[in-house]
């Protein structure tokens, strides 16, 4: 079946089998390997992508169902070549990862949280990432990273802040 997908701001027309998951389509057809295949039945959250800005499981959607939505993967967060979004930066700085398998999904989930809630409490951060399993970190540095990113993103909105357009990243 032919499906038109809008991924990271670019339109793609792909021919897929109707049974192909959005996850497999992103990875194998569009070569966007940042969405990870973990449990492949909706439990681990490693395949999370943003659908119209909301985190969803790409393993539980068929590619043909994704027509017409705005899809954002980890590859779409960078504001420019060689640059990182504030959330990605914060994950590096606090070392919010070990093996990295859950990281793209964690970062996308954090982006969605911060887009709607610029000053989340610790409890809100924990709740937001509760659908994403990390088997390495014990979550502490991930929570720290998201809090740090939130603080920085609030900072760039202040009149005396740094160049907001360079750091804001996609909503």
């Amino acid at each position, binding site marked *: 079946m032919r499906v038109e997908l809008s991924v990271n701001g670019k339109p793609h027309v792909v021919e897929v089998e*109707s049974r192909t998951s959005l996850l497999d389509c992103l990875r194998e057809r569009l070569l966007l390997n940042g969405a990870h295949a973990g449990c492949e039945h*909706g439990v681990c959250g490693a395949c999370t992508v943003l*659908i119209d800005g909301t985190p*969803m*499981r790409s393993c539980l959607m*068929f590619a043909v*169902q994704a027509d017409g939505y705005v899809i954002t993967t980890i590859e779409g967060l960078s504001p420019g070549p060689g640059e990182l979004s504030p959330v990605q930066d914060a994950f590096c700085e606090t070392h919010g990862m070990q093996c990295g398998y859950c990281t793209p999904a964690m970062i996308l989930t954090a982006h969605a949280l911060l887009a709607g809630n610029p000053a989340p409490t610790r409890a809100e951060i924990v709740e937001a990432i509760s*659908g994403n399993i990390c088997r390495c970190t014990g979550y502490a540095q991930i929570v720290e990273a998201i809090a740090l990113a939130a603080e920085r993103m609030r900072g760039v909105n202040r009149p005396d802040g740094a160049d907001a357009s360079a750091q804001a990243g996609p909503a």
Partner: protein
Amino acid sequence: MVAQGDDVRIIAGGQTLVPLMAMRLARPRLLIDIVRIGELAFIRRDGDAVAIGATTRQCLLERDPIIGADLPLLARVMPFIGHAPTRARGTVGGSLANADPAAEIALVAVTLGATLCYRDGGASAEVSAAEFFIGPMMTALPTTACLTAVRFPVWREPRVGIGFHEVNARRSDFAFAAAAAQLALDENGICRRAAVGIGAVTTVPLRLEGVGEALVGTRCDAPLVHEVVTEALSGIEPLADLHASAAYRRRAAISLAGRAITDAYEAAVNVN
């Protein structure tokens, strides 16, 4: 509606069906995607009930003012249904139609005595939640039918309270046992109407009719609650699996139902 066979399934959010397909527990030949049928996505007052369209996303119920005001028990269970990313895509009708024994929406539907509406060919029909669920992942819905809506009765008494508890291995994971209660009290704090249900304990969610009847006319004191709940659950056949034995599920259900009733009573007493 397209005529279907046993190997044709309707898909909406896919948050229950697709995991079953991934594990090869469901192997449909054909899927019919109804999630973009706009007419099936709604939340509206309908006489003494609130009607929710089958393809209404679960996440919409979390912040809907009608649900919050008229169906506090349903509002209460929403955060327990999967995680935010699955509620963003999962639908109310999909959760009901797939009939997972641990599903919270099904538990509330059975507890409150909801009515499920479906279309079969050109005809519309209804079935009570109690008759709808017949086993794990099995419903009375004809294989050629499509669930269209669910109507939850609204309690208009001035003093209504709700309680809900569940135990699971991780937050928002499948419940091993769950219990829901909704009580209406008169001005003297006497229970005038009671609905109590348990989920994840047996093959289908159960409304504990006897418990509801026994609580009416009382102040729902803890010893009485424990006695009637224990009595009601003595005859059930709990599920047993790797995570929780039948004996554990029965014990947990007694305890959780007692807590849910007590919470509901206290909440109702504290309404003005």
